[in-house]
Structure formats: C-alpha cells, structure tokens
C-alpha cells in the first residue's frame, strides 16, 4: 500500500515536471518572447537590453533551469501589466472559480441523482425516455450557447437574474447551471446504466426474496453500489469543471481564474498565463492522485499495479 502511494506520488511529480516543460515552451512558441515585452517600434539596442535584463539571452536549458527553480519556490515572475507576483494574482482568483465549480457540481448532482434513479426504476416509461432525451441534449449543448441562451431567456426576456458579475447568490445561478449542464447530463446517464446493472444482480434478487421493502432494496443495496463509479469520478469532474469554467467565466464576467487567464493571454502577460496553466494542471494532478488513493481504500479488490 505504502509502495503504491509512493509510486503514484513519484509519477505525479514526473508529470508535473513534464507540465513545467510545456509551460516553459509556451512562451517560446512565438519565437522571441522579448517582442511580447517591448512596445512596437522599440530599437534593436533596447530590445537587446531587455533581453539581457530578463535573462532571455541565455541558452534555453539554462533559462529552463532558472524557470523551474522559480516554480519550486512558487515564483513565476511578475505580471507584465501591473508588476504584481503572477502566482499571487492566480491564487487570489482561485476561490471564485472554486465556488462556481462547486455550485455547478451541486446543481448537477441535485438534478442528476433523482432523475437517474427514477429513470432506472421506471425503465422504458415516458419518464425514462424524457430523462434520456434531456440528458442527450445536455451532453450535446455547447457551454457558450447555453450561457447565451440563459441570458436571453432569464435576463433579457424575463429579468430574473443579473447578466454577470458576482454580487450575491443570484449572480451564481446562471453561470452554475451553464457550467454544470454537461456533468448533470453525463451523471444522469452513468447512474441510470449503473443502477440498471446492479438491479439485475443476485444480491438484489436475494434482498427482494427476503421480503425487504422496495425502498430499502433500492436505497441500501442497489444505490450504494451504483454510486461507486459516480463518487470516484467526482474529484476528476471537479478538476474538469475548474478547467472548463474558462468560457462560462467569460460569458458571465465571473471574476475567476479562467477570466484572469484569458485576459492575460490577450494581453500577452505570459508570467500570469504560465502561472494559471501550471496551477490548474497541478490541481488536476493532485485531485487525480487523491482519487486513485481513495479508490484503493474504497475498493480493496483493485489491483495495485
């Protein structure tokens, strides 16, 4: 067990090492990063000076070592726009994005769990078909259109919610629905098919044969087992929501990480872009590791390879 956790930990560190290489390479995609720093029309001498000042005249391996040295200390350099530490700017925005992702996940589960259960129990009914059609639509709906559509209906036509910003719970409703729709649809489908499978198993038949009330059979025996695949992917879903909130934040002017990152990309503020991409990737790797370890505890049958 300890060996497995140790191996997974090492693996995660090696992945983060790869992530740091890509994040570093990102800036050199355009060729000369100093052109991102200098205003148009800067003379050759001034460009050379800037290059020296930022250490961009050194060989790439040396620059990379300096970069990764900074990363391990949490230093991504200063924002080119306001001279504040890039990592600080990113961490400052993380809570808003976490709040949005958590709300999206809550809405997804609140809707998906009852619909998934009812669809499985009333298999083949009108309710089941309606639920599956909605889930199929939800999975095919691009976030940017759903966001625009919700604004059209609930802001323009029926003014119930604000179109953007982050004032009070009302401003959280539309972005959370937008971001959570895909997860809602997918969780509904996964839960339904898992539950259908479990309901056909021997121990469920045994429980029924013993005369256990239907409610108890469904809740105690079937649901608990069919939730395992749902629960084990929750952490990864959350990571996906964090990364996926980029567009939702853009539509609803939500002051989170995604909006900061997109703004920084447009402004070519590369230290902030690097910090944002690295932080989201680190959160993803961390949640992935946590899921794997949790899974071993939840399911002792899993092979430790």
């Amino acid at each position, binding site marked *: 067990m300890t060996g497995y956790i140790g191996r997974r930990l090492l*693996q995660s560190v*090696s*992945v*983060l090492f*790869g*992530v740091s290489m*890509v994040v570093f390479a*990102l*800036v050199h*995609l*355009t060729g000369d990063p100093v052109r991102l720093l200098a205003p148009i029309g800067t003379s050759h001498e001034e460009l050379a000076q800037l290059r020296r000042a930022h250490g961009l005249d050194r060989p790439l391996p040396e620059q990379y070592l300096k970069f990764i040295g900074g990363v391990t200390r949490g230093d991504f350099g200063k924002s080119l726009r306001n001279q504040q530490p890039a990592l600080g700017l990113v961490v400052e925005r993380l809570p808003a994005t976490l709040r949005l992702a958590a709300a999206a996940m809550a809405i997804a589960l609140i809707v998906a769990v009852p619909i998934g259960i009812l669809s499985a129990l009333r*298999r*083949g009914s009108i309710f089941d*078909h309606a639920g599956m059609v909605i889930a*199929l*639509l939800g*999975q*095919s*709906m*691009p*976030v*940017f*259109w759903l966001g*625009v*559509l919700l*604004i*059209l209906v609930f*802001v*323009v036509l029926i003014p119930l919610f604000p179109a953007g910003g982050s004032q009070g719970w009302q401003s959280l409703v539309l972005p959370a629905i937008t971001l959570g729709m895909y997860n809602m649809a997918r969780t509904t*489908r996964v839960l*339904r*098919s898992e539950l*259908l499978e479990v309901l056909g198993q021997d121990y469920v038949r045994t429980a029924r044969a013993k005369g256990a009330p239907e409610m108890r059979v469904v809740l105690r025996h079937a649901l608990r087992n069919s939730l395992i695949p749902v629960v084990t992917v929750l952490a990864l879903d959350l990571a996906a929501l*964090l*990364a*996926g909130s*980029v*567009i939702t934040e*853009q*539509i609803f002017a939500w002051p989170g990480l*995604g909006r900061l*990152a*997109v703004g920084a*990309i*447009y402004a*070519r503020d590369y230290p902030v*872009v690097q910090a*944002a*991409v690295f932080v*989201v*990737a680190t959160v*993803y*790797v961390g949640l*992935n590791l946590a899921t794997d370890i949790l899974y071993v505890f939840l399911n002792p049958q899993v092979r430790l390879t």
Partner: protein
Amino acid sequence: MNSARASWWRRFLRQRLAAAGGIFLALLVVSAFFAPLLSIADPVQQNLSLRFQPPGGAHPLGTDHLGRDVWSRVVYSGRISLTVGAAAVLVAGTVGVALGLVSGFFGGRVDDLISWIATVQLAFPFLLLAIAVVAFLGPGLGNVILVLAIGGWVGYVRVTRAKALEVRERSFVEAARAAGASEARVVTRHVFPNVLTPVIVLSTFEVARAIIGEAALSFLGLGVGIATPSWGGMLAEAKDYLAEAWWASTFPGLAIMLTVLSINVVGDGLRDVFDPRLRT
C-alpha cells in the same frame, strides 16, 4: 410492458435516433458542399440599412447587426466546422493510432515514454492550453486544426494501446510470427485491423469534440478569424445584441447543437452495432 419488449423498443428508438442523426449529417455535408447555391446572399456582405431584420420574407432566418443574412452565414459556417472536425480527427487519429500501436505492441521504454507524454498532455486544461497556443501562434484554420489535434491524439493512443496489448497475446499473432511474418507485417496486417472498430467509434465522438472546440475558440475570437463566418464567431458577435435580435444567436447555436447531437447519436448507434456489450 414486459422488459424484453421494453428493451426492444429502446433499441428501436436508439437506432431510429441514429438514423435521424445520420440523415441530418448527410444534409449538412451536402449543404456545406453546395453552400454557394443554397445561400441567398453573400455571407460577408454588410448592409446596414437591413440590420436586425426578423426571420421571414427575403431573409428566412433574419439578418444580424451588420445586416448580413443569417441563413447564408449559417450554411457557409458549416464548411468550417466540418473541415476542422474532419481534419483535426484525421491528424489526431493518424498520430494517435501509430503511437498507440508502437506503444502497445512493442512495450518497454518506448511505451513508457509515450504513456508519460500522454499523461502530461491530459494534465493540461485543454481549452486554456488551446487558447494560449492560438493566442501566441495567431488565429487561422491551420493553427486551430493543429491545436485541436494536439488535444485529441491521447484518446487514440489509449484505445489503440489497450487493444494492441490484448491482440498481441492472441494465437493468430503467434501463428503469423511462426510462419515467419516480420514485425511490421504482424502490426499492419494482424493488429491494425483489430483496432479499427474502437477507433472508428472514438472518431465520431472526437469529431463532435473538435467541432465544439473550434466553435469555442471562435467564440473567444481565437478561431479561424473574424473574416470567415463560423458558428462560434456568429454567436460571439450576436451575444451583444440579444435584446435586438434573438435570431442572430439562436440559429448558429442551434446549428452547433444539432450537429453535435447528431454525431453523438450516430456514435452511440455505431457502438451498439460494433460492441453490444457496451450498450447502456
């Protein structure tokens, strides 16, 4: 209704859905091909005296904030979506299947390296990385295809690698080897045909993902460029005029959704046909 008949109904409905999706996609391909014949106006022609015309009459889907015909723009945008979807999947699929075959069939150091690169790739928030790369490289059809292919190859590696690992141990591979077939021949003639089915099923879903990806990038102004009509770009422009013209955002949005929905039901149908064990 007994459960046997219920599942038969389900399957019937599922296949009917897949058929409907297939018909929609066929119409989409035809309309993209014959876009110049189907459009009623130049999709980029501005005419400010005709701005915000509601659907009907000379403009069946209305006009946008610059007086451009929405129907013509939707039809022309289909070309971009289909081109990007097909090209991105072709590039990602070719690279991914090749790497997956090598990884699964030969194993060892090469397998470790390819698997490591795939894990690193998966750690990235795809859209954020795509935005960053396009922002640094500049918008344009080629760059968008490249970025979406970078985001798609890992799925192919995983599917192909798993299948190659499985096939490698089968007796017909052993027999081919015993008969003196070269490694290259074993991979291309015996392993490759066996990975094709899951790759085809994966490809349908990947086309949908690439189309959404292109629309998302265009929505953020980082797609094929503002001069070329695309569904994502139309949505981005129309979202600032929701109160004046609901139709300018609704029709391109509907086009993306119906396209993605059709691809998804066709993919589900294909999976049911090829691999009934996975039926849900």
